C-alpha cells in the first residue's frame, strides 16, 4: 500500500445533505458530552457515502468545523485508514478480496474480469468514470469465496463468467442481486448437509 494520493481535482465546497445531517446528529448523540470528536470516523464514512465513495478536502474541513477540531487531526485520520478514499473512485466502487481463502478459490479470475471490463489497473476509473476496482484484504466472507464487494453489497461464490455478467450489469447502470451466485442461502452447506445431522434447526 502506498501513501494515498490526494486528488488534484477538488470540489470547492462540501455540505451534508438534509438526510445525512440528521444521521450525523444521531451519530454525534452516541458520544458523551465533550467527546464528540470521536465521531470523526463515522462522519468521514458518511461523507464517503454521500460523495460517490470518496472524501474531498473540503469535506475534511467541513467535518473539522462540524466537530470543532483542528483540520490536521481530521486529515490524519483520513490518511491513516485504508478504507477512506481520498480521490474519486467512481459511483460503483468494487473491492475484490484476494486474501488466501479467496485466492485459493480463484480470486485472480475475478481480478482478470475487472481488468477486462473496468480498467487495466486497480484504482483507475473506467472510461465512463463511474466505476473502479481495487484488490483488498479479507472481507470476512471466506465461506463463500471467492467474492467481491460493490459499494455496500457482497457478491459471493463467483467465477469469471458470473463476474463478467455482474460487471456488465453494473456498467449498464443496473443493480444486480447481491448474495451467493451458486444458489446458496447465505453460507449454508452446499448440496446435502454432512454434519450436525441430528439437529433439526441447524
Amino acid at each position, binding site marked *: 500500500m502506498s*501513501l494515498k494520493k490526494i486528488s488534484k481535482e477538488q470540489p470547492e465546497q462540501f455540505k451534508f445533505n438534509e438526510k445525512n445531517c440528521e444521521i450525523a446528529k444521531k451519530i454525534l448523540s452516541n458520544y458523551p458530552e465533550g467527546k464528540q470528536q470521536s465521531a470523526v470516523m463515522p462522519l468521514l464514512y458518511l461523507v464517503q457515502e454521500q460523495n460517490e465513495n470518496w472524501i474531498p*478536502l473540503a469535506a475534511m474541513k467541513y467535518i473539522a468545523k462540524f466537530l470543532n477540531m483542528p*483540520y*490536521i*487531526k481530521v486529515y*490524519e485520520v483520513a*490518511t*491513516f485508514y485504508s478504507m477512506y478514499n481520498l480521490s474519486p473512485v467512481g459511483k460503483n466502487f468494487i473491492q475484490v478480496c484476494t486474501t488466501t481463502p479467496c485466492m485459493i478459490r480463484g480470486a485472480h479470475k475475478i481480478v482478470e474480469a475487472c481488468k477486462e471490463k473496468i480498467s487495466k489497473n486497480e484504482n483507475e476509473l473506467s472510461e465512463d468514470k463511474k466505476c473502479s476496482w481495487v484488490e483488498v484484504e479479507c472481507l470476512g466472507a471466506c465461506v463463500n469465496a471467492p467474492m467481491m464487494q460493490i459499494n455496500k453489497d457482497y457478491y459471493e461464490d463467483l467465477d469469471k463468467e458470473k463476474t463478467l455478467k455482474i460487471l456488465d450489469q453494473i456498467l449498464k447502470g443496473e443493480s444486480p442481486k447481491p448474495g451467493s451466485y451458486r444458489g446458496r442461502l447465505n453460507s449454508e452447506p452446499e448440496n446435502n448437509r454432512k454434519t450436525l445431522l441430528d439437529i433439526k434447526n441447524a
Partner: protein
Amino acid sequence: MLKLKVNNQDVEVEEGLTVLQACEKAGVEIPRFCYHEKLSIAGNCRMCLVEIEKSPKPVASCAMPATEGMNIKTNTKFVEKARKGVMEFLLANHPLDCPVCDQGGECDLQDQSMFYGVDKSRYKENKRFVPEKYMGPLIKTQMTRCIHCTRCIRFATEIAGVSELGAIGRGENMQITTYLEKSMESELSANVVDLCPVGALTSKPYVFEARPWELKKTESIDVMDAVGSNIRIDTYGWEVKRILPRINEDINEEWISDKTRYARDGLLNQRLDTPFVKYNNKFDKASWREAINIIKERIKETDKDKICGFTGDLVNMETLYIFKEFFNKCLNSNNIDFRNSHSYLNSEIRENYLFNSGINGIEESDFIFLVGSNPRFEATMLNARIRKAYLKNKLKIVSLNNVGDLTYPYECLNGKTEDIKNILEGKNSISKDIINSKKPIIILGQSILSCNSGKYIFETIKSFLKKNGKINSEWNAFNIISENASTVGSIDLGIFQTVDGSNNTLSKLENNKFEIVFLLGQDSLNFKKKNEFIIYQGSHGDKGAEIADIILPGAAYTEQNGFFTNLEGKLQKAFKASYPPGEAKEDWKIINDLAESIIGKKLFKDKEELDSSLLNYLNLENEKKSSRKDSVVDNLVFNNEQIKLNNIDYYYSNVIARSSKTMFNCRNEKFKLKSTGTEG
C-alpha cells in the same frame, strides 16, 4: 516516597515519577528520542528500554510509572541488546548524510548511535524517501531523516497551541507535515528545530552556516521584549550566527520566540559603523572628534533647558544611567524620558510598574483578566505560560477586548472603559470572579495606560484590588506588561520627568520647545521636526537616524555587556558576544567621551566604576521605593471611550527586527495567510 533499586543501588524517589525519571534521579542516564520533560509522553521511539526484574520483556522506561520495590537494570547485556535492536530499526531508513546535515555535531541520533549503533547494516532494501515539506520561512525540512518521535507535533499542539502539525499515513508511509503544507502560524514555531532530535527539522536561515563546534558561545539576555528570555548567542568571528534558548524555569523555561531567535540577521544589516554629520540634507562621514566637537559647540550655544533626551527600547541600564548622569551633571537638567507616548506612569513604589504575580505565579493563578493587552505579541513567552496554566488548571480567562487568537479560549468584553467601571462597581459578574478567586491576575497592557482614561483605570483597578485584599504580602494581583526590554530599567533609574504621570518632555517636544534633541536608540518618536538639532545615537540606521543631524554609531545588545531588568523586576546581565562594527563604540563610552569634551573630565573612569555606581544607585532607589507607602491618587476623571489596542507589528517591532530579512519574510508570510483567508 518510593523505595526502588536502580542498578542494585537503593534510591528513594517521589511518587508519580516514571522509571526514566527515577533513573535520572539515581544519576543514570537513559537514551531517548521521543521523551521530553516539557511534553506529554508518547513512548514511540523505544530507545529508553530498560530491564525490570520479573518483567520478561524490556520496558519503555519513559512511559512506565515507577512503583515500590522495582528493581531496574540499565546496564545489562539484555538492555544493550534491546537498545541496539531499536537503534538498528531507527537507522534502517535514516540516510547516511551526516556530512551534509546541519544537525551534525549536536544530533541525538548521531551521539547515541556511537553507543548503540551497529557498524554494518544488515538491510539490503532501499531506504525510503520522503518529499520535503514546506513549514514556513523558518523551518527547513528534510523529512527522509525523520524518525517519527512526534516531539514537534506535541510541541505544536500543547505548548504553541496551534494544532497545525500532524502525522499522516501510517507505518512506513507515515509523514510529519503541516496541514496542506501551510506555514506554522505561531510565534514559537522555531522551537521545533531545537526539539527535533535528528536533522529533519533544521533552521532555514542558519542553513549550512556553521558547525556547532566552530562557534563561540555566550550566555546572554534577550531584548526583543520585556520578558528577558535567557539566550545563548553563538558567534563566528564578528557575526552572530544563531541564538538559542537557555533553560530558565522562572522565565522562558526552555523556549524562545521566533523574533528572539531570528532577528539576529538584523545585526548585520543597516548598521551604523561610523559617525555621520548632515550637511545640506546629506549625510557625510565624519570622525569621532569632528562629531563630538560639533555637538559640544551646539550645546554651548544652547540654553540648557532647551535640550532634551529620549531613550529607546533596547538600551541597557548602564547606558541609561550614564545618560541620566550626563544630563544631570553636564547639562544640569532632567529633560529626559523613555516613553514615546503619553502613557500614564506611577513610579511611587516598584509594584506600580512590575508584573507582580511573577511569570511562575501565572501557573498558580485561578483567574486572569487581560485589560487592554495582547500578551501573544507583547510578551510571547508570558503568553505561553498563560496557555500552560490554562491547560493545567482550566482557569477562566477574560479579556476586555477581542484580541484574536491567543492560543487559549477566553471570554470577551466590549472593550469599553465603562466595562471596567461596571466591574469595579460590582455591576458585572466578573467583579465576583475576581473577589472569589484566591489568586487572580489582572494584566494591564500598554494600550490601556496610553489611552485617555489610563490614569483612571490604573488607579481604580489598583484600589479595587487593595480593597478586596488581592494585594497583600503573599499575592499581588496587579500586573503590568511592560513594552520593552528597557522599560522597567528606565523607570528604576528615573529616566523621566513627570507630574501626575504625564509625559511633560514629550509634550514640550511636540510643541517644538526644544532646540537640541538627543535620541538614544529611540526610533519610534512621533513629532513634527521644525528647527531642532537632532543627535541620534544607536546601532541601526532607521527612523531615528533618518531625521538626525548627527549620528553617533553605538553597539547592539550582543556587542556590549549590559544590565536589563525584565518585567518582573529581575535584574539580569547580557554579555558581550561580539564587538561593534567599524568605528562604532559601546554606548556608555560615547556618552562618557561626550561628557569629557564638555566638562573636561570623564563621568566614570571605567566600566567597573560605572557598574558599581549604577548598582549602588539602584539599591538606594529600590530601598527608597520599598520604604514608601503607595499614596492614594485622587482627581480621577472618567472618560467613556472605546479602547483601541495598539497595533503591534510583531515581526517589525524594533530596529533589529526591522533590519532582519528573516523577520521580513515572516511578516510577509503572515500577511499572505491573512489575505487568503486560511486563518481559520
